[in-house]
């Protein structure tokens, strides 16, 4: 059964690559927009290099697992935008599209004759979202980023770790994911505004700048109270407060203990559970779950102040207990008693063992022409009337070139063949892939 989709009849021209932009258009596609991904094998970043090609498959433009998960719900047009003919094709496409998204370095598109003013001449109400590292405005617009650099320069890296140790930072490009989320937010907000007013606009998103508002309380502590984050006991690891340092809120909510990660049975790499007690009442419930061992009766642990002060000992005692249980068993026992506890989950845990994500159908398998059948991540929200769902596997490079050029843009089959011959739709010095031969028949 086909249900209506939220972005029915919305077309997006997607120049983006690597992670941040493709992560955005993946969701616009799941919501029903037609995503046309402009690619060129000579300048491609995202399919290669690949560290996620399944063992036993050749690493090539069509076998990256990460690309496959990041690019569902899109069509691929291979096109040399730097050629005059390619530019004409892309302009014809923009003229019948609603949104243009790109994550090149600042001003690359402008240099190619596709700046916002040019876009407006082609499609006056176009919604154009640019998402470069530092944005198109500001003296460092030409600086380049990659998630970890944006996270460093914007303070996100600094705010995680143990006191007196180097920053632990983020183990992946959070700002590629979150930059992508902001790109979707900008595109939808711009589209809504266009639908209400008839006016498009250029939205200038910066990966580095978008990180900064994610630290509001820490920034206000400085701008209002003059308290910087370079201070004893900060950041306090997984705790709300580091014992023996001045009592200051550390921007994760109420200052309480226990508030930490504890090892669980059998003590392997990802056998950890986090436990947080927000009140005396919650602490007393945890005491009961632990079987009320004698140490819990100590005066030192009877009050919030005492538990904060004696956190080292408290955490050691809790861990002696947590080591006796598996992380899912511990979670169930705690939650059944109203104690805040959840397991640290690896990717394998979430895909295979998390009963909630399974119930919510977060990972459903779909076939891919080069990779076979694999689970793909679904939208983390459920719209009652226009559900978001993955309906197309990630495209092979240039897979939809004929469909787009002939059916959508109205070029003749001869023009398609000529374009393959003159290097518009595929480099002349590169062997055509089998499905390209098919589309030229």
């Amino acid at each position, binding site marked *: 059964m086909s249900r209506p989709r939220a972005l029915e009849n919305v077309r997006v021209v997607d120049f983006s690559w690597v992670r941040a932009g493709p992560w955005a258009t993946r969701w616009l596609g799941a919501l029903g927009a037609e995503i046309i991904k402009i690619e060129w094998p000579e300048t491609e970043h995202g399919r290669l290099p690949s560290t996620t090609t399944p063992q036993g498959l050749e690493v090539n433009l069509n076998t990256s697992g990460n690309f496959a998960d990041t690019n569902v719900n899109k069509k691929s047009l291979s096109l040399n935008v730097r050629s005059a003919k390619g530019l004409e094709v892309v302009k014809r496409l923009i003229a019948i599209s609603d949104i243009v998204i790109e994550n090149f370095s600042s001003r690359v598109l402008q240099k190619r004759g596709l700046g916002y003013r040019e876009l407006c001449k082609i499609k006056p109400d176009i919604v154009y979202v640019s998402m470069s590292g530092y944005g198109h405005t500001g003296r460092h617009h030409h*600086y380049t980023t990659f998630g970890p650099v944006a996270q460093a320069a914007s303070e996100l890296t600094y705010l995680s770790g143990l006191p007196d140790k180097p920053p632990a930072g983020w183990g992946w490009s959070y700002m590629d994911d979150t930059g992508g989320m902001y790109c979707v937010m900008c595109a939808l907000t711009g589209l809504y505004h266009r639908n209400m007013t008839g006016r498009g606009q250029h939205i200038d998103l910066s990966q580095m700048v978008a990180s900064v508002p994610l630290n509001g309380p820490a920034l206000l502590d400085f701008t*209002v109270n003059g308290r910087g984050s*370079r201070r004893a006991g900060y950041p306090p690891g997984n705790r709300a407060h580091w014992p023996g340092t001045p009592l200051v809120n550390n921007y994760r909510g109420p200052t309480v203990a226990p508030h930490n990660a504890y090892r669980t049975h059998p003590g392997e790499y990802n056998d950890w559970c986090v436990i947080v007690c927000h009140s005396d009442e919650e602490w007393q419930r945890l005491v009961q779950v632990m079987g009320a061992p004698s140490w819990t009766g100590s005066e030192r642990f009877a009050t919030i102040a005492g538990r904060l002060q004696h956190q080292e000992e408290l955490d050691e005692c809790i861990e002696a207990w947590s080591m006796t249980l598996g992380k899912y068993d511990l979670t169930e026992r705690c939650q059944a008693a109203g104690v805040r506890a959840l397991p640290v989950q*690896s990717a394998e845990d979430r895909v295979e063992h998390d009963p909630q994500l399974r119930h919510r159908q977060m990972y459903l398998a779909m076939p891919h022409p080069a990779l076979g059948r694999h689970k793909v991540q679904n939208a983390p*929200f459920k719209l009652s009337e226009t559900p978001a769902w993955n309906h197309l596997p990630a495209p092979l490079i240039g897979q939809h070139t004929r469909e787009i050029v002939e059916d959508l843009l109205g070029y003749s089959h001869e023009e398609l063949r000529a374009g393959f011959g003159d290097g518009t739709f595929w480099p002349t010095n590169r062997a055509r892939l089998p499905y390209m031969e098919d589309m030229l028949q």
Partner: protein
Amino acid sequence: VTEAETLSVPFAGPLAGLRILELADEKGQFCGKLFGDLGADVIKIEPPGGERNRHVGPFLDDIPHPERSLSFWYYNTSKRGITLNLQTSDGRRLFARLAATSDVILETLRPGFLASLGLDYASLRERNPQLVMCALTSFGQTGPWRVYAAADLLHLAAGGEMASCGYDEADVPNAPPIAPGGGNAWHTGCHYAYIAIMAALVHRTAAGQGQYIDASTHEACAPTESAIANYIYRGEVLRRQTGRHHAAGPTPRTQFRAKDGLYVCALVGGRLNPKFVKDLADLLDSYGMAGDLRDPKYRDPAVVAANTSHIIDDLVADFIASLPAEEVYHAAQQRGFTWGAVRAPEALLDDAHLHDRSFWKQVEHPELGRSFIYPGEAAIYNGSPWRISRRAPLIGEHNTEIFCDGLGLSRGELCVLAENRVI
């Protein structure tokens, strides 16, 4: 002000004319701010006496008070505030009247709570078929964990963030997984909820009908990491490393201590080739620290590869150790290196690029006779600006405006409601 009038204002935000009712705690307050700063009229509904996040520090001048929570201030800009006790029949009726003239309801109450009060989506949409209602809860409305209790730390554990973040064994032996900075589970839930609501609103502009959205913080956190593809396609479980990406096996370090004790994130490993070495030699040479990098032997990619450790652990590390982190950052970026200083929040106030983007905003707190600097926008909307229209509301600050001027209650009726703890 009617919707048409608001939209005719040339510098209204992109969401001008949209009214949102927010019944949100820490799970959803940031989502309300995202809407409010983009021009929507967000009405925050708090229980009489105020929402409990008013008790989260830090506080203005370290004096705890429900009107002095900087956390509450930050997450509740550009909203109007009213108080309403939904456990009373008067409160429910007033809520239903507000819902009848609103575009969106954003609620973070436990699953089934609003329905138990007769305020479920089916009932509310009878009077307002265009209504979009989003429940943003920890785990969603269905499933075995739907009633579980959570916290920011818990979501970062179960969502997969912590499994990817931590330390090299050499830096911190036996280190636990480390949670990223506070609030990011809530932020992530709010980003996806915002997207879902906007998608429903865009759909409404064509279809004319609202819909219900079941969103959850746990599901939002689960894809906000990048270990999934390694597991699904290769069966790999990734290891945590200090200040850089998780990986199936060890990768060269990217975080270096500078002269001032701060750190620099410098991407070198994985990029080393003769061209990169030449550029690196130019950078290091500008400070007289190129070492042997000008040696012609580095024209051979094999020699470059064989000297990876020498280049990273000796030359780059020594270079960065000789300079302040900010100087390395700008010198490297000016030469095209994708490097960055690891900055503490306070350093951002001096960032010239942010100033060029007019990023920092002065926000008036008239009751204090002061104004404070707040962080600004992720993106510049060139045709319909983002702005903080007001500081976070005081408790019940807009009760008169909304109940009397908006719904037509008399001052006498308002007093009765207050006396009976309805507002």
